[in-house]
């Protein structure tokens, strides 16, 4: 059962890879990379159960955190063209650095 789920997730990774390579706009690629990270997390968790070692779930959770942070960084780069702008604007004038 878990093996079937693992195969399905790997197939999904292949589809997302096609979208990331072919994706016409930048946001297709950002979304593809983010979903690909989620698929990696799922594949790692399932792989732990298929290999009989559910401790891999901890590693999968860590990957989820890293994936989230890097997606935030990419989107921030697109919104502001820089990493130096704080995400939360303080008051009125501090936003556009």
């Amino acid at each position: 059962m878990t093996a079937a789920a693992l195969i399905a997730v790997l197939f999904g990774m292949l589809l997302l890879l096609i979208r990331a390579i072919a994706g016409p706009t930048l946001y297709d690629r950002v979304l593809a990379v983010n979903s690909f990270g989620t698929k990696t997390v799922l594949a790692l968790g399932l792989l732990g159960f298929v290999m009989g070692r559910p401790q891999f779930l901890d590693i999968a959770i860590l990957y989820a955190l890293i994936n989230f942070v890097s997606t935030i960084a990419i989107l921030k780069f697109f919104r502001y063209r820089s990493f130096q702008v704080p995400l939360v604007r303080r008051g009125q004038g501090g936003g556009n650095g």
Partner: protein
Amino acid sequence: MAMSEPDIGLALVNIVLLGLLFVVAIAIARLRSLFAIVMLSGIYSLVSAAWYVAVDAVDVGFTEAAVGAGMSTAVLLGAMLLTSRTAKPEKSLRQLGPLLVCVATGIMLIYATVDLPAVGDPNSPANTGVGLTYLRVAWYDTGIENVVTPVLGSYRGFDTLGETTVVFVAGIAVALLLGFGERSLAETIRNEDKSLPKANKKPEAEDGETDS
């Protein structure tokens, strides 16, 4: 793990992950849009991190996920700020040299794997030295199931601390160069670009800007 069917499944998973890596690598070499290449390098890091976990190199997988997928994507985007958005196409004749170097290196690496000892070979150098002692002693010393973790964090703790310091300093240097602070190289270049029309009128303004 003793049955043969999970081993075949595991080999299939390895083959699929390595195939994904191959496809991503070809796409990175063929694409011209730098942003797509950055995104694909993030995917490459994620796949290779998953593959490291699948072949039981959990610590390497950690490093690859944190540095490759997290940090280096941000660093590459910061580097993109300083250049153009697309790469110039190379002439096909000039691509021949790097291709030959890659093929030669690959052939040498494959030739070197022939001499590697088999997995679990009791006569291999890893098992005849102190490795077996660590395997026997580590659990009683630290109570951690994965032997790699106590070796890296406990027996060679100072070595790991030094490595971490080196990586931290390198990260700070790259961040200062690429634009994560006001005094970074990227910010200086951007300020010079902005102040270029003004610089003809008032040269003092640019001096004050770069100093402060």
